[in-house]
């Protein structure tokens, strides 16, 4: 059974190959292949996950392995393969399950798209990447799958950039935006990946291995922590710190942390299931997973001088608040969620930075469920707005005068959708409450509270308060979104004519809503009054087994009411303020906060002008450099060389022609012909056509030969 481990990523890949080669003409079969392969992967994944859940200590100590020798490298053979330990099991519980639900949802969402089969082929390839990534037992294989995800992300963000004009509703501007967004995502993440690759190479040079079990072994880590490297600019640091920070840059790119966060909001140009799967639940959290996986490397340097942990905590905390504030001032329903994702990923990194390993893993899991739900819900809303727009056109309400251009994603044009599409609305609200950490019942509360409690307990007060404010902002923008979309009066014809999406879309929503609420209950801390005695911190003890296997200490936090109350206040307070501003009175097309906040609002609405800053500095510099190099290469160096070679080549050829070809070769050839000609003229005299002449010649010849023969003999 352990040998079947490779099937988990291999089956979706098989589906991808089959769709690309054979079934791309048949949409139903293509979708069926992807969904079927993912379903089998899901069942297999859960088999291994539950094996780990039932025997956490055993599996943490001795992971389920499948390993083959790959290639000889230097002095050792490079082994590669898959493994399942407790951390992988936790991901394996979430990833294939979400993939499956979102693929089912996509059938409804992408219906009628001319490139339906291709979409499912990409999805299958992505599933391969993500599943392979979490199962990989070494950094190199993980990196390969990581990049595979990057490619799929690129392809799927730009999915609507190839559409033939006039095919459906998509306009040229959107096509351009999609193309730009896919390139931006690819290049931005590549920045992080390149730095990470450098870290990987250094790590291999230092340890001679890339397997988790070997690089994270205590002896190896001790060695890395003791060796000091001295760098220009950065000064001296232990190797472990350097490697950790280099690897963390990969995570910054993939998980869209400041300063490489700019690609994720633009990635919302892709189809919504893609946003839900790749840009909320799985791929972006791969960065967090990577840091959780390599956590011992970050943790090994003694506290106080550990700048790697400090760096992670700083980036995470800063991004959590930074992105959350931008989320307040966005009108695009998906962009709000995108900034929320960045902010929540920041939470996870902040947790890792302060050493809250379990809390980070817990939040990663919970976030995947509720954020996937929110994205799918928003997709359902967008879908309905589209149809509403079409229906209102057909019924002659086409001359609607809107103060802003129609865009199905624009929350200013929604409102009152609660009655039109109750299933979507209620599941979205469940997800929203979970995101804002509504106390006691929602999954988001338990995971966020865990992080805040850890920050409080560890005495990281700056981190704690920043995250607490971010929690308030999160609850606020979530509340704003819910009130703008689902409550009040419809603010456009499209919203008036919207109606509920098909079952293939709403059923996954309902299932995810259950998880978005109930999944968090597995992580209720043991020390929590009342409820804790029932659950006994199941998730904490599960991940605790993993920590013990890594030889890291882990303690059960004593119950503390202060962070709990603060976190509750922030969540409920944020929602309440949102209701005060957005829910109490009817909304216009201008945001009620835009005028009172003035410049601050402008800063948030324009995302702190980070894009403009990059455009003016990095992009402008890159363009200038490209132009300079183009000039340098093509105009000043390469072109003259090429031209010169050409010119002298021609001259040389001319000389060769005149002195060798014409003088020598031609004469030889002509001479041969002339000799043949003269000889022929002479010899044709002999040919008389008279047989007797020939006979006479034979007689003479034979006679001569005989005489000669006698003479010789």
């Amino acid at each position, binding site marked *: 059974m352990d040998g079947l481990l490779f099937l988990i990523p291999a089956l979706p890949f098989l589906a991808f190959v089959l769709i690309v080669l054979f079934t791309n003409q048949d949409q139903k079969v293509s979708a069926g292949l992807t969904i079927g392969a993912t379903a089998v992967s899901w069942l297999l994944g859960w088999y291994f996950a539950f094996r780990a859940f039932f025997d956490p200590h055993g599996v943490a100590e001795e992971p389920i392995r499948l390993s083959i020798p790959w290639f000889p490298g230097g002095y050792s053979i490079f082994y590669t393969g898959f493994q399942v330990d407790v951390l992988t099991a936790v991901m394996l519980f979430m990833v294939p399950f979400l993939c499956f639900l979102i693929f089912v949802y996509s059938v409804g969402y992408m219906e009628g798209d001319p490139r339906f089969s291709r979409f499912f082929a990409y999805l299958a390839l992505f599933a391969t990447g993500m599943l392979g990534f979490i199962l990989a037992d070494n950094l190199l294989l993980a990196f390969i799958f990581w990049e595979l995800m990057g490619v799929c992300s690129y392809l799927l963000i730009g999915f609507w950039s190839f559409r033939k004009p006039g095919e459906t509703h998509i306009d040229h501007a959107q096509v351009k935006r999609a193309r730009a967004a896919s390139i931006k995502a690819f290049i931005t993440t590549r920045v992080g990946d390149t730095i990470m690759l450098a870290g990987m190479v250094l790590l291999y040079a230092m340890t001679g291995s890339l397997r988790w079990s070997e690089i994270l072994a205590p002896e190896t880590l001790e060695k890395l922590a003791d060796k000091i490297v001295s760098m220009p600019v950065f000064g001296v640091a232990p190797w472990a710190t350097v490697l950790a920070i280099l690897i963390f840059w990969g995570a910054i790119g993939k998980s869209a942390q400041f300063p490489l966060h700019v690609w994720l909001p633009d990635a919302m140009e892709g189809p919504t299931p893609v946003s839900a799967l790749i840009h909320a639940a799985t791929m972006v959290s791969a960065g967090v997973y990577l840091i959780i996986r390599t956590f011992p490397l970050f943790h090994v340097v003694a506290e106080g001088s550990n700048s790697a942990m400090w760096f992670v905590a700083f980036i995470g905390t800063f991004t959590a608040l930074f992105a959350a504030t931008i989320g307040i001032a966005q009108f695009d329903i998906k962009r709000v969620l995108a900034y929320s994702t960045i902010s929540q990923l920041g939470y996870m990194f902040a947790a890792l930075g302060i050493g809250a390993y379990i809390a980070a893993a817990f939040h990663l899991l919970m976030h995947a469920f509720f954020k996937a739900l929110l994205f799918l819900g928003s997709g359902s809303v967008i879908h309905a707005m589209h149809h509403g727009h079409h229906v209102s056109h057909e019924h002659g309400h086409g001359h609607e005068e809107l103060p802003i251009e129609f865009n199905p994603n624009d929350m200013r044009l929604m409102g009152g959708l609660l009655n039109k599409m109750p299933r979507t609305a209620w599941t979205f609200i469940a997800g929203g409450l979970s995101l804002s950490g509504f106390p006691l019942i929602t999954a988001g509360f338990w995971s966020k509270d865990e992080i805040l409690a850890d920050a409080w307990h560890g005495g990281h007060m700056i981190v704690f308060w920043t995250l607490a404010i971010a929690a308030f902002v999160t609850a606020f923008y979530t509340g704003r979104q819910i009130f703008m979309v689902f409550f009040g009066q419809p603010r456009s014809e499209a919203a008036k004519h919207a109606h509920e999406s098909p079952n293939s879309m709403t059923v996954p929503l309902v299932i995810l809503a259950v998880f978005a609420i109930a999944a968090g209950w597995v992580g209720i801390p043991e020390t929590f009054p009342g409820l804790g005695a029932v659950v006994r911190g199941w998730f904490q003890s599960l991940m605790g087994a993993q920590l013990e296997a890594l030889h890291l200490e882990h303690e059960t936090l004593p119950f503390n009411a202060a962070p709990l109350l603060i976190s509750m206040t922030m969540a409920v307070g944020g929602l309440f303020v949102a209701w005060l501003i957005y829910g109490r009175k009817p909304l216009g097309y201008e945001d009620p906060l835009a005028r009172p906040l003035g410049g601050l609002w402008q800063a948030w609405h324009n995302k702190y002008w980070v894009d403009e800053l990059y455009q003016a500095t990095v992009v402008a510099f890159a363009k200038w450099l490209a132009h300079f190099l183009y000039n340098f290469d093509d105009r000043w160096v390469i072109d003259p060389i090429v031209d010169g070679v050409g010119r002298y080549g021609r001259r040389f050829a001319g000389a060769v022609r005149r002195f060798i070809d014409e003088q020598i070769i031609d004469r030889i050839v002509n001479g041969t012909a002339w000799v043949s000609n003269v000889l022929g003229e002479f010899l044709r005299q002999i040919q008389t*056509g008279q*047989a*007797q002449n020939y*006979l006479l010649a034979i*007689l003479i010849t034979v006679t001569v030969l005989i005489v000669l023969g006698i003479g010789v003999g």
Partner: protein
Amino acid sequence: MIPLSWFLAVSAILFVIGFFGVLSRRNAIAILMGIELMLNAVNINVLAFWRYTQPENPAGLVWAIIVITVAAAEAAVGLALFIALYRLRTTVNIDEVDLLKG
């Protein structure tokens, strides 16, 4: 018994007469007769050698008979050709038959 060299002498004289005929005659039929003479000279030669070296072996006799047969066949073919030639060109003079001359 007549010595072998006499036979060889007769045979050589006969061959040379035949060959002279082949070279010097214009008429194709006369050339054919020359060829017959040469063949017979060869036959005498063959039989003489047979008789003087291995009389117990019948191969020599058989060989001579084959040569006679071939000579007959050759004369038949040659005459047929000359008849065809005469019909075509109204001559059997071989210096007038030089179509193949380049």
